[in-house]
């Protein structure tokens, strides 16, 4: 496990392609220190014979949706949140060659 220091959060931010200021990175470091302490408490619990859970309720379901058109949103709404739109398409910077 890497040290959760300022440089670590700055590296993560770069990988996820957003900016993080020195101040924010420090704040993240402080918050994660608290979180880590809490997680350390959980680690003290004996889980030797406990199966891991994936879902809060382990009962199986049976429902499948019928293949009927129910909900479409307008093109205008679909594109509303896009920063840039070109010819009815969402326009983003190209990241492939």
């Amino acid at each position: 496990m890497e040290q959760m220091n300022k440089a670590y959060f700055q590296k993560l931010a770069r990988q996820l392609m957003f900016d993080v200021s020195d101040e924010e990175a420090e704040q993240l470091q402080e918050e994660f220190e608290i979180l880590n302490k809490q997680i350390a408490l959980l680690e003290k619990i004996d889980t030797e014979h406990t199966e891991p859970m994936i879902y809060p309720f382990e009962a199986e379901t049976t429902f499948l949706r019928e293949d009927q058109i129910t909900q479409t949103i307008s093109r205008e709404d679909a594109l509303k949140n896009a920063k840039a739109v070109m010819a009815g398409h969402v326009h983003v910077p190209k990241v492939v060659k």
Partner: protein
Amino acid sequence: MNYETVIGIEIHCELKTKTKMFSGAPVSFGAVANSCVNEIDLGHPGTMPCVNKEAVRLAIMAATALHCEIDPLVKFDRKNYYYSDLPKGFQITQQFHPIGSGGYVEIETDEGKKQIRLNRIHMEEDTAKQFHNEEGTLIDFNRAGTPLVEIVSEADMRSGKEAAAYVEKLRSILNYLGVSDVKMEEGSMRCDVNISLREAGSTVFGVKTEIKNLNSIANVSKAVDYEVERQKEILEQGGTIIQETRRFDEAQKATVSMRKKEGNVDYKYFPEPNIPPIRLASDWIADIQAHLPELPDQRKERYQSEYGLNDYDAGVLVNNRELAEFYDEVCAHTSEYKLAANWTIVELTAALNKLNVKPENNPCNPLHLAEMLQMIKEGTISSKQAKIVFEEIMQGKDPKQVVAEKGMKQMSDGNELLKLVNEVLDNNPKSIEDFKNGKDRAVGFLVGQVMKASKGTANPAMTNQLIKQELAKR
């Protein structure tokens, strides 16, 4: 050194449903961009996926036809990656519990039948379609969330020919099942081929490359053949193969590098928390499995056993579902099965090519063709005349009407024909003499003369027989 080629194929097929895998938005090819989407497809916060029953049904059909074992407990997982074709930041797929496991596809090779084993068939959602241009990338989310099945083979293929045969067979099976449009050129069936070489006799896999962008079966075989030669050349010069994704460039007829694969990408798979496991009713699965449509191999077998067709003719018909369905309709109206097969394979195909019409838009009425075949069989028209009648049938005309209008009836009246035969014999004493001197060719000449005198309406078989009969008397 002797190399062995090792090929495994992954195929993605869009399922023919009305709505998406996890949302009630319509699935539509070629619709106006971003007009067939809703909040679930766009990954808006707070939306919940809901599994499409029809997609599961079609996946069960495909898995059954491919001899897979069905898992009645449907589970989905998240495949996490960050790319603009994926609005949620993850794709919902079945990494840990595919709906079908094992199974096989049987192909024909030069050495006979061969089973290509399958690893799995699983359900997932398609991504958005992207168009890259100079100014950036344009995204159309209509395709996002379209139900897909991914069919993963084992690395059992050994040549471009086998790879193409596998894709073709799989396409045919899925087409007969009606679970997918399987149009490689439109992308409703997409094929990724993994290729590596190894020393003959070795059991260790060599470094593989993956080829994408194969939009036809012919290109599968071309791309593999090219890639095998490329890898062989590198290995023979002592080089090493770089693990990478390549695409087939049609213009260059070559594979070109798209991107290097630096180690295995970690997709951080985990079970999809928004879809709890779904138990499928065993009687529902059994019902789907009991009502599968006729598959290509079964149909081929039926054509041979019921209609007496040979392996080749049965194969040609079955390879084209629309053509085979037309043939079945013709056979519902006539028992001239072999004649019907010949006319469907040769004349109909030629006529469709000439008209530049696809078999699914075939204008020929199967009843009309059956009636025409009956006329040939009964000697009402000759095969030569039938070709003219057939042209009119392709224009939508009734063969009875064509024969009547063109005064085409074949001369099959024994007395009338006998009179004509004797006239021809009287006019050709030299041929009679030739015949008596053992020149059998004379018969052919005389038949030709009768044909000419009857303006092509004489029944050739009867004419032949009458000439021989009358020659014997002279």
